[in-house]
């Protein structure tokens, strides 16, 4: 999974798993696990924005938190600038915390209502630096300028601010320690459309100014298209497709990505009526009991026999494009056809040689 041409990886994630145990019965024995994140691998290149998209319950937020070690991971490896942080104890992680920060979804819930703006932004400085009181004060005011908050509001409490302004406070707090890497967990989901654009522009400006690297978690595919350099699509704890943003949106390869993109409503009536939509049937299976074989096999419009028995591995099918799907595996395809072109058509692919038969009939 090395994207060599793109630059140095700042964060490297390999086979990351995060399973939440399920306890049941009288003795509270462990009887199963919610496989929230089930073996994901990717790199974050310095200065880029990696969009992590998927529907609710696909594990994108859990992945974001696990990468910052807000959860103890089940297995796998996370490296920050080459240093393994997946297994570090919290006491040592604390020293690394200034480099990696988080912006949360709900600015209402992630700000302490009893702390003023200045106190909120200053708290990381109190914890991690030895600045003098006046230096801290100066830093807080500079941060407020940077995120577009009026300095006069420093003494106010979160309730006095609107949603968009509260999100600015959260961003200022995340920036306080000059981090390299910020996980933005649905930073605009709770905001009105016209305010979303303000916050996204701010995040882009700050990235340019401070050279930040973002992991931008969102379910809003059109906003991710705007902000992200590369996009990873998650489904049921796995990354099904990872590609440069423009390529992914222009030509999605995984059947799930295709369905997801075709489901996004476009603000253009003409386009909407011409649009060939792939409407998925049914719901996402439970991550406590994922299907055998490919996780998407229960809803895939192009499912084949092999999908129900064998889990597809993520493969690089074109430079920088990683897809986990049997349809793109040359071993499954008829001789002479290239995988990528074969799988881009909407029609189900022809059967491969040997025993594999396509199973159709999931569409109404």
């Amino acid at each position, binding site marked *: 999974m090395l994207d060599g041409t793109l630059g140095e990886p700042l964060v490297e994630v390999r086979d990351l798993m995060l399973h939440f145990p399920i306890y049941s019965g009288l003795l509270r024995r462990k009887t199963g696990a919610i496989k929230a994140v089930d073996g994901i691998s990717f790199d974050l290149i310095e200065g880029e924005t990696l969009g992590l998209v998927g529907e609710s319950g696909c594990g994108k937020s859990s992945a974001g938190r696990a990468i910052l070690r807000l959860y103890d991971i089940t297995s796998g490896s996370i490296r920050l600038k080459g240093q393994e942080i997946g297994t570090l104890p919290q006491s040592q992680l604390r020293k690394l915390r200034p480099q990696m920060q988080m912006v949360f979804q709900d600015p209402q819930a992630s700000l302490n209502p009893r702390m003023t703006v200045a106190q909120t932004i200053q708290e990381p400085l109190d914890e991690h630096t030895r600045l003098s009181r006046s230096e801290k004060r100066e830093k807080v005011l500079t941060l407020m300028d940077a995120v577009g908050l009026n300095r006069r509001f420093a003494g106010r409490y979160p309730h006095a601010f609107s949603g968009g302004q509260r999100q600015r406070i959260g961003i200022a707090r995340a920036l306080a320690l000059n981090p390299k890497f910020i996980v933005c967990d649905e930073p605009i989901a709770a905001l009105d459309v016209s305010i979303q*654009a303000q916050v996204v522009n701010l995040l882009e400006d700050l990235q340019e100014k401070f050279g930040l690297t973002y992991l931008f978690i969102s379910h809003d595919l*059109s906003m991710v298209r705007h902000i992200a350099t590369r996009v990873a699509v998650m489904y049921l704890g796995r990354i099904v497709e990872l590609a440069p943003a423009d390529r992914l949106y222009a030509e999605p390869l995984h059947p799930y990505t295709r369905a997801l993109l075709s489901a996004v409503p476009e603000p253009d009536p003409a386009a909407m009526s011409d649009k060939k939509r792939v409407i998925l049937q049914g719901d996402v299976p439970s991550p406590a009991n994922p299907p055998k074989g490919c996780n998407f096999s229960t809803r895939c419009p192009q499912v084949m026999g092999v999908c129900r028995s064998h889990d597809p591995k993520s493969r690089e099918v074109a430079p920088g494009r990683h897809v986990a799907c049997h349809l793109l595996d040359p071993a499954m395809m008829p001789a002479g056809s290239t995988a990528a072109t074969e799988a881009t058509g909407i029609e189900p692919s022809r059967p491969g040689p040997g025993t594999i038969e396509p199973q159709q009939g999931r569409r109404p």
Partner: protein
Amino acid sequence: MPDGGLPVLDVRGLRTMFRSRSGTVHAVNAVSFDLKAGELLGVVGESGSGKSVTMMSLLGLLPSPPAVVSGGPVTFEGHNLLTADEATMRKVRGGRIGFVFQDPMTSLNPVFSVGFQIMEPLRKHMGLGRRAARARAKELLDLVGIPDAARRLGDYPHQFSGGMRQRVMIAIALACDPKVLIADEPTTALDVTIQAQIIELMKDLQQKLGMAVIWITHDLGVIAGIADRVIVMYGGQIVEHAPVRELFANPRHPYTRALLTTVPSGAHARARRLTVIEGQPPILTESPDFCAFKDRCPVVFEICARMNPGRYPIGNGHDVACFRADPGLNPDLIPGGAHA
């Protein structure tokens, strides 16, 4: 699409205020619109624009105090809903006018089975017996695409997924063959693939049952895909109204234009910075004798602070509440010149 059809619902000059100790909020100001038989009317606006309050007001669903609903008439099947007695309103609500709310988890009662909740309007409004109601409930669940309907009648809301719960809500709203269905952000709480399922279902049902639908949303993309006509609301007023293609091809109100450009769309994504509407949506603590958008408008001029613009018809069934559309104002005086 069904232009010239008779209006099934006609709202004239509806006003809603909320009185509280900290002042009065003018949530809905002189809203007028009609809904024709069999059409889908989209209502777009941000939170606080008054779109939900408008619908709650005309159904008499707001507690008074603090709400004060005035204006009207709101004509539906020969009744003025604002003055109708409670018995009539009971027949209308959930009977002749169905309602689908945003969040299916909070609008279904967790302690009753889904079957009970679908059968309730059938027995109350249609006077069906237990067995007939049960049969009809099963039919309804089949209609909204819930597999294994007969068995699932006994299940409770928590046993359904979000999309399935919304299907149950739709089944309840459809139970009494409503003439009008009001869907208030019915897909906002759902994922995009599930949203696509629900939109398909609603389109399909609308064709099958021939009812008129009011679809409230903040998502212009959803509106583009389903609506016949669109109303854009801002600050408790209708600022623009047009057939859907006309609105997206030729938006005339500065707010609508701004709203369309803040959404990154497929064609010109990543091209440049997103356009931003500076400032915050208004909270109307005074009666708006001015244009509610004046503080955020890029082309504001002097009269906008003194008068509230009426809705100027500009052809093609399109009208816009903006002085820029006033034929009496010289277009040369307008900053930015004529609309291009």
